[in-house]
């Protein structure tokens, strides 16, 4: 009995994070050179490794470039944070082909309201936007972005931003009320951190409207 025929197609399903294999593996390949495992681990890589993979070889480059799923959740952390410009962000997020779901920019202090708005405009299905430590962003900019998503029938579920100081907290009162309206059912949590306040906003119930 040969088990192989039934294996190639459905060998790996139902796991998260979203895997990137789609039946293109050869059951008898892989052991010798390690590239058989390549496609399996792609879904586990962080942004820096994905970018590195693009420079490894044609196979690696094509595997990464050919899988839009890999780019639907983007997290930029140190040490890349400080180097990320609006333009670079736009290029990276364009790989999701308009289907970006989650964007987490940690301490990306070069990112501007306009830069983020461009990304959101091209990816209206964003449900999670975390921008703690993105000090160039303004509260008003965030409000505009959330409103824009609302107008475009977006379904934002989770938003995290930092709010600095008293002055910003007054602005953020406006921000809060706008968010409550724009996101409908929301749960607001204000968390004090070493850097100031992190406003954590969850959409409590992803009700279809």
């Amino acid at each position, binding site marked *: 009995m040969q088990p192989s025929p039934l294996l190639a197609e459905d060998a790996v399903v139902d796991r998260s994070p979203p895997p990137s294999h789609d039946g293109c593996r050869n059951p008898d390949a892989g052991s010798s050179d390690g590239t058989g495992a390549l496609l399996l681990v792609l879904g586990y890589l962080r942004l820096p490794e994905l970018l590195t993979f693009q*420079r490894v070889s044609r196979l690696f480059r094509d595997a990464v470039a050919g899988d839009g799923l890999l780019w639907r959740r983007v997290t930029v952390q140190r040490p890349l944070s400080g180097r990320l410009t609006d333009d670079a962000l736009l290029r990276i997020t364009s790989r999701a082909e308009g289907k970006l779901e989650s964007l987490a920019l940690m301490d990306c202090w070069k990112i501007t309201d306009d830069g983020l708005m461009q990304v959101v405009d091209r990816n209206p299905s964003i449900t999670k936007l975390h921008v703690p430590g993105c000090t160039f962003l303004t509260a008003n900019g965030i409000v505009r972005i959330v409103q824009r998503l609302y107008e475009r029938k977006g379904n934002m579920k989770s938003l995290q931003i930092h709010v600095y100081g008293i002055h910003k907290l007054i602005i953020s009162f406006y921000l809060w009320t706008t968010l409550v309206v724009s996101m409908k059912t929301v749960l607001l949590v204000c968390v004090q951190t070493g850097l100031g306040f992190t406003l954590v906003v969850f959409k409590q119930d992803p009700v279809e409207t």
Partner: protein
Amino acid sequence: MSEGTKEPDGGEEKVVLKTHDGQEFTVDMATANQSGTLKNLLSEVGSSSNNPQVIPLPSSITSRVLGKVVEYCQRHAAGGGRRGGMQALEQFDEELVELDKDMLLDVTYAAAFLDVPRLLDLTSQAVADAIKNMSVEEVRHYFGVVSDFTEEEEKVIRSECPWAFE
């Protein structure tokens, strides 16, 4: 691994996994069912203790690799209820994937082939952790590949996201 090669005891259903290098692993059904692939297969053909089904495996799954997979499946078939609960199980998982590079890649591959999702999750994460912060050259070395880019392609690639490689 040693448990997997024991003789079947009692009338419990068993199945024999045969590697390309000729080793046989006799496992009980609860262990085999940890693998989606074997579960599917056995639901169609069945197996018994007197006449256990022999399932040949592809050459990429050596006996050493299969030993690891069987070890995982046996432990998880027993579940968290035995041997110190979930915490012990988690520790077992952690220690299981402390493997050298080649073994890790091979077990990853075997976990995919045999459809053992949680093991695949463990090993894939371990690979991802291992290559964290590696340079391009280090990744090539890790996976045993060489650059096959033309000069032209190399130029294009270097122009992409140069900020990430400063």
